[in-house]
């Protein structure tokens, strides 16, 4: 059987990645490389370079803010931090996602039984 709707899956992944990135910095600011390391195992980010356009857009939309900080063990790093608006967006996605996942799971389970 062919892989179902590959385009859809990749679109879903792209959309979800945005909020996963925001979730990664909800407790404390992080720099991009840290986020890449955290995302590395998940398969959500296949080409690391594509994280930077995403971060730029989040910043332009006012969902994150950035600050350069000196580091003791490397070059200066740009830290990303959630703004109040970013927190609201993340919270909205979280509740949306939870109900979406429950609905889809429910239907998929139903389909398996019959």
């Amino acid at each position, binding site marked *: 059987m062919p892989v179902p709707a590959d385009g859809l899956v990749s679109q879903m992944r792209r959309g979800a990645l945005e909020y996963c990135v925001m979730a990664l910095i909800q407790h404390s600011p992080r720099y991009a490389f840290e986020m*890449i390391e955290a995302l590395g195992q998940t398969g959500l980010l296949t*080409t*690391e*370079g594509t994280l930077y*356009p995403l971060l730029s857009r989040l910043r332009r939309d006012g969902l994150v803010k950035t600050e350069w900080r000196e580091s003791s063990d490397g*070059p200066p790093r740009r830290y990303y931090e959630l703004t109040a608006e970013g927190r609201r967006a993340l919270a909205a996605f979280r509740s949306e996602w939870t109900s979406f996942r429950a609905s889809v799971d429910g239907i998929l389970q139903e389909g398996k039984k019959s």
Partner: protein
Amino acid sequence: MTAPHADQLIDGYLARLDAAAGDLPKAARQELVDDVRAHITEARTREAEETDAAILNILDRLGEPAAVVAEARERLGIRAPQPYRPGLLEVLAVILVPFFWPIGVILLWMSPAWHWRDKLIGTLVPPGGYLGLGILGLAAAHSGSGPCVIVSDAAGNTIQNTCQQAGPSWLQAFIAVALTIVIYALPLVTASYLAIRLRWGRQPQPGIASLRMERS
């Protein structure tokens, strides 16, 4: 330890990224290149022993510059540049460059289908197309008969005669015919050249096009 070709590899990657991002807004393009440069610097500090292979792996994980830029375009809501399709403007330009030079050249420079180098060639070789050649020919004919001066003394002996032919007449005739052929063929050669270059320009940009196909 620094990898032997680290700078070469990294500069090459960043240059390709910068070139691929050519159609992004200037600030976005600069930010993208700066972010990726910082990423590479950061990644290098984590390599226990830096080799060329380690650098290549860092760049591989970043992804193809075209893919990164495609993502940037999508996040910025910018459409990928469509390959330009030549049309009436280009056909008219090719025809008018030899036969009606000033208009042809204006059309030539208006069209985005040619590289500026080709436009310059179309403009300068030969200058003025057939119109320019006509003027040039008139001027040559005029100057040919102009400086022919016969100076005689009182007794009627010729002191100076510039009307004497420089070489045997058959050679002159041959050169004249050859020149005429070359001169009249040149504008057509230029037009053909422009037509050929136009066809090359028609090929869609492979990187972006194939990427878009994969995505959709």
